[in-house]
């Protein structure tokens, strides 16, 4: 019998085939051994424009296009390498200092080795993606060299060699090959090939082998503005030194091993979830885990154990004797740890004296009431599955700067206080303290060692002076992860070539007219806020011979201009939504489309997507129709203009009449919605008035409500619901819809109890109808605002609405709780929301206007899109609110006014007051009440805080108070915010 063994060794090409063998563990904990073939070759080019030899054998793709060469023939030089140099960083260099490589002043001509890319991908996917986008950028000249596939640079792992050692060896081998290879280029000065590594051992070995190698810090020092860049090299560089510390120095408990956590979670002993920090108390976190209906508390620095807000962590439930009530105290980090010294970290106690004191009071309070209190289960963090660290905006804490640091260029350690109060102070080492003081800066967290009280980070860049408009706006955008860079050229290339001259084709034979209905003769108009440029929607109505009405909603046909999967579509899907700030709008689509070609401007013809209903005078829908169309809007009204026109009896033209019809119908629609149990919720909304020329904020106004606003809203809701039904019918698995989950009953527990105790009111939450009714009953005849206050508080107990793909939920889950609609989607604002654009494409496919594009049908893709736009939507809202808050602060600057406010939350050492006039809320602490902090007794059962001593007052929940509102620059967060002082309690 013939032998089947060793077929490979007999092969003459055996030397060119290698195997990559590795072991991986699956999610279920299985261990798999994977063997993969590797074909070694010699036609992988070095990609240097100097090298003629490689150019000759450059590979080409299936279409015969050769791959372009990347590395410059005259790369930049440094002091040590005046002849120019190519960089070969190792994995650690990218892991620790990706920001450096993204600099524009340096780091060009970089060779990214395959093994480095591979390791980076395994360690951090976001960093990998950033590196990939660097390799695609044309001016940075990053080249990926597939060293593992090139025969000469392939390095088999030796017996007893660790994977890391092998990889380091592979990097050195590649560097040496590059050096030798380039040395063969004749007649020109050859650039040096420099290995960058933070591993001292690796650098030493490379130098032994006669290669150019340098640590990141040494290399950066050679560069022109090296001093500045040096700050961007993170702390972990000195890892070796930290390791030498005695184990007794560790302040935090060690994390469990990954496998221990995994088995723990699997067996139900440990729990996994996202860690959230309380906005009022930086030492209190909570975590919602699937196993329990209510979230678990995590109290104290030690139990939080280096988790940062947003991290995916694993927790262990603490024994019952350690269960506590959630804190009723406000604890702010800066107040307690104000005078810490960033340098002398070790000499201090881990839990500072003040922190301890705060904790004692807490214990006293809990124990005094153990009889009637309801301690909540607490937990401690035992490990972090995934860090959710991003770049944080903050500023340097003035008090942490030493005198010498303010002058010289000596490296100094300071604290950075992030804008986001939930993020702990970050320890930062920098040489440019003097320059950075008083600026908004961007930093990242690098690590949080067990031995370090605060996380360690490094400086990324400065945004500008504190409280300048540009810096604060950019800070806000960064903080909420809004993509604000100008649209790249690839996106602009997708715009119609005619630019602003684009017109609806005159000839009806044009392909643009295909299957489009001509609605140019209808009396269509749009109603929007003053100054609105991106007009998404327009309306019309006309009586029909049978006594019914025809009502049409016309939405900008954005999907005509934004084709699926081109660069513009991709960009829009990433941005997800347009972000409105007080003085700025960050568009989802380029201006040309948003404010001109798509915008349903008056007096010009525009493409639209129309929803047309036939309605009875009682606003019952008899029939509906969807069609692409061409319209010509007769007028663009503002809400106010439209209102005036409707109210003015003398106006009897057809357009005004049709608006009146719409208004009458909309009122009936609204009544129907309310009867079905739609909630009318409330949030304190204000508008900042700007001076027209300097655009400085001058005043704050609460938003007025007009009938015409509700007119537009009702028809948009109706259009959204009709479209949702239609696309769900056509695509039961993949329709993009919006749902609003019913809030869990427990969310309302506190509010219901508060209402019961303070006002004897019942809040029933069985259904949205019951809730709406009971909210209607929450009135205080003496205080008209009380009802709004309760609505504001109820709104905060709600879930947030979300986009989803219909296949991921069962039909009953589609329900929109707030609108009391069975099914809902977003269709009416495609210029500013990506979800609407997707709905447009699905509807176009559903009415067989165009073929179904695969991206509209692929469920995986849609789910990813939904996930992204949910996050973006939320961030856009938060950014908008933060922007208003900033401008309210600016508008109040230097003014002091007395206003009425309402107590909406109460702690044992302070209370939160909402001032409806400005839509702001602020905390008033006990120590703010008088020079010496008054004594206080807090009754959690009746939500009453009574003070004695230096000032005697009694504050209750829902109470109306008089406060003086002034502006104040918060020294610690650097934000200008409002400060409230209690004037009287009435």
């Amino acid at each position, binding site marked *: *019998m*013939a032998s*089947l063994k060793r*077929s*490979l060794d007999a*092969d003459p*090409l055996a030397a060119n*085939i290698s195997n*990559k063998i*590795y072991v*991986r563990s699956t999610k279920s904990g*299985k261990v*798999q*051994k*994977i*063997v*993969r*073939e*590797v*074909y*070694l*070759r010699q036609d*992988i080019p070095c990609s240097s424009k100097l090298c003629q030899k490689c150019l000759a054998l450059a*590979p*080409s*793709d*299936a*279409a015969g296009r050769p*791959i372009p060469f990347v590395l410059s023939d005259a790369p930049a030089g440094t002091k040590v390498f005046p002849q120019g140099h190519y960089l070969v960083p190792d994995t650690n260099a990218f892991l620790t200092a990706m920001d450096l490589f993204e600099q524009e002043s340096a780091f060009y001509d970089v060779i990214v080795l*395959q093994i480095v*890319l*591979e390791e980076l*991908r*395994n360690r951090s996917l976001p960093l990998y993606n950033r590196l*990939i986008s660097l*390799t695609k950028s044309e001016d940075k000249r990053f080249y*990926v*060299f*597939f060293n*593992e*596939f090139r025969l000469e640079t392939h390095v088999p792992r030796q017996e007893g060699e660790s994977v890391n050692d092998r990889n380091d060896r592979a990097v050195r081998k590649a560097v040496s090959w590059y050096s030798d290879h380039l040395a063969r280029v004749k007649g020109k000065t050859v650039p040096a090939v420099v290995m960058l590594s933070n591993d001292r051992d690796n650098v030493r070995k490379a130098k032994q082998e006669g290669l150019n190698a340098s640590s990141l810090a040494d290399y950066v020092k050679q560069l022109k503005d090296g001093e500045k860049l040096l700050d961007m090299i993170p702390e972990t560089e000195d890892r070796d030194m930290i390791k030498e510390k005695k184990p007794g120095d560790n302040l935090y408990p060690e994390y469990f091993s990954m496998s221990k956590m995994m088995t723990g979670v699997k067996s139900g002993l440990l729990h996994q979830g996202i860690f959230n920090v309380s906005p009022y108390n930086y030492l209190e976190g909570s975590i919602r885990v699937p196993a329990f209906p209510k979230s678990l508390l995590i109290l104290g620095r030690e139990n939080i154990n280096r988790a940062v807000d947003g991290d995916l962590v694993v927790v262990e439930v603490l024994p019952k004797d350690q269960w506590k009530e959630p804190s009723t105290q406000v604890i702010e980090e800066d107040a307690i740890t104000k005078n810490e010294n960033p340098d002398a970290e070790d000499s201090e106690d881990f839990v500072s004296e003040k922190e301890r004191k705060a904790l004692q009071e807490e214990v006293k309070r809990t124990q005094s009431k153990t009889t009637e209190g309801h301690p909540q289960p607490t937990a401690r963090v035992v490990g972090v599955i995934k860090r959710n660290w991003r770049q944080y905006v903050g500023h340097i804490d003035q008090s942490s700067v030493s005198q010498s640091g303010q002058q010289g260029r000596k490296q100094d350690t300071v604290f950075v206080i992030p804008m986001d109060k939930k993020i702990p102070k970050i320890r930062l080492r920098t040489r440019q303290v003097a320059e950075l003081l008083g600026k908004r800066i961007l930093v990242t967290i690098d690590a949080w060692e067990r031995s370090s009280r605060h996380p360690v980070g490094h400086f990324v860049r400065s945004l500008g002076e504190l409280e300048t408009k540009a810096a604060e706006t950019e800070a806000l955008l960064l903080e909420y992860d809004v993509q604000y860079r100008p649209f790249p050229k690839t996106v602009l290339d997708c715009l119609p070539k005619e630019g602003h001259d684009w017109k609806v084709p005159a000839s009806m034979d044009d392909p643009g007219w295909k299957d489009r209905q001509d609605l140019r003769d209808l009396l269509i108009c749009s109603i929007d806020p003053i100054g609105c440029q991106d007009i998404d929607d327009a309306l019309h109505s006309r009586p029909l011979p049978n006594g019914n009405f025809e009502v049409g909603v016309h939405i900008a046909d954005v999907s005509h201009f934004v084709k*699926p*999967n081109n660069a513009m579509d991709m960009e829009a899907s990433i941005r997800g939504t347009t972000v409105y700030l007080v003085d700025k709008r960050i568009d989802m689509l380029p201006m040309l489309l948003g404010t001109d070609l798509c915008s349903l401007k008056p007096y010009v013809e525009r493409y639209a997507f129309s929803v047309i209903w036939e309605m009875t005078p009682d606003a019952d829908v008899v029939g509906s129709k969807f069609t692409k169309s061409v319209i010509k809007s007769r007028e663009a009204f503002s809400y106010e203009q439209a209102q005036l026109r409707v109210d003015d009896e003398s106006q009897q033209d057809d357009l005004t009449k049709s608006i009146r019809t719409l208004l009458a119908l909309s009122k009936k629609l609204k009544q129907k919605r309310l009867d079905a149990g739609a909630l009318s919720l409330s949030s304190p909304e204000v508008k900042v008035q700007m001076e027209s020329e300097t655009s400085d904020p001058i005043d704050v106004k609460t938003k007025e409500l007009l009938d015409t606003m509700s007119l537009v809203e009702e028809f948009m809701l109706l259009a959204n619901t009709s479209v949702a039904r239609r696309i769900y019918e056509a695509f039961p698995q993949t329709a993009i819809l919006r749902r609003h989950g019913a809030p869990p009953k427990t969310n309302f527990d506190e509010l219901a109890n508060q209402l019961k105790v303070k006002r004897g009111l019942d809040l029933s939450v069985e259904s949205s109808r019951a809730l709406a009714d009971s909210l209607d009953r929450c009135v205080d005849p003496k205080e008209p605002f009380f009802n709004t206050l309760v609505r504001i508080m109820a709104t905060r107990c709600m879930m947030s609405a979300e986009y989803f793909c219909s296949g991921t939920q069962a039909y009953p889950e589609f329900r929109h709780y707030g609108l009391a609609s069975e099914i809902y989607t977003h269709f009416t604002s495609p210029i500013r929301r990506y979800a609407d654009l997707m709905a447009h494409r699905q509807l176009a496919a559903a009415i067989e206007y165009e073929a179904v594009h*695969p*991206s509209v049908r*692929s469920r*995986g*893709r849609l789910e990813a899109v939904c996930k992204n736009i949910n996050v973006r939507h939320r961030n856009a809202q938060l950014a908008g609110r933060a922007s208003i808050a900033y401008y309210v602060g600016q508008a109040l600057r230097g003014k002091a006014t007395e206003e009425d406010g309402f107590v909406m939350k109460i702690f044992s050492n302070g209370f939160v007051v909402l001032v409806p006039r400005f839509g702001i809320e602020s905390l008033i602490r006990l120590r703010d009440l008088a020079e010496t902090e008054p004594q206080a007794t807090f009754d959690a059962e009746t939500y009453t805080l009574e003070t004695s001593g230096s000032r005697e007052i009694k504050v209750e929940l829902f109470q109306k108070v008089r406060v003086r509102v002034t502006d104040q620059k918060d020294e610690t967060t650097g934000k200008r915010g409002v400060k409230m002082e209690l004037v009287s309690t009435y």
Partner: protein
Amino acid sequence: MPLDTSTYSLGLLRVDGRRWNELRRIHAQIRTQAAADGSSYLEMGHTKVMCVVTGPTEPGPRRGGNVGSAGGAGAASGGQHKDAEVLVNIVIAGFSSVDRKRRGKGDKRTLEMQSTVANALAASLHIHLFPHSQITISLHVLSQDGSLLAALINAATLACVDAGIPMTDYVAACTAGSTSTYAANDESADPLLDLNHQEEQELPGLTVATLGETDRVAVLVCESRVQVSRLEGMLAVGVDGCKQVREILDRVVREKGRKMIQEGTVERGTGLNDMDVD
């Protein structure tokens, strides 16, 4: 863990270091089982299969329905066929893939592969020469790393050649794919030849088999979603790959023949008159 298929565009290199139009290493042997009528062993990369052909023989008692069969026109029970019946039986070893899992006899994917192989070979074998008989092809999968169906067809072809069953030509098979996923909808995606397991998991692909040196397609199986516009390129690359595979199979057969003459197992000229053995 190595990179995934999305890095192709960075260096026009695939996950295992091949270019878009390169086959993996193919190694094949025939007459590996002395006792069998025909046998072969074939490796395409790490996909390893063994094949044993028995027949043409008198039809035995019919076993259960879990063999793929083809040919045997006018199938009356009891094996009274005008043509020989081709029966294919595939056994996938539990250890052949990373996850040790046992595939039952009734596994639908295996059944489908059996019938595909049976149909492909029945079209090339001269089954009309052997009425009332059956040809049994037993395939054993020892190791899997993508392109399994193609490897099975190739191994079966070789074993049939070894068994000396008259046939029109080689049925040579290979797979073709595309460098980006269906959802990515990348207009400039390159076609790929001979997918390994990782590529098969992440990218769209098809299996194609052709008859000899012609462009006649004997098998075309595509189980993944792919844009029609890419299909032509994929098919062209696949057909081209099949020709390369045919070359390799032919070389293996000739090599074996030459060795057998050298060793005196067969005399030159006995039935090999028209075959030029150098």
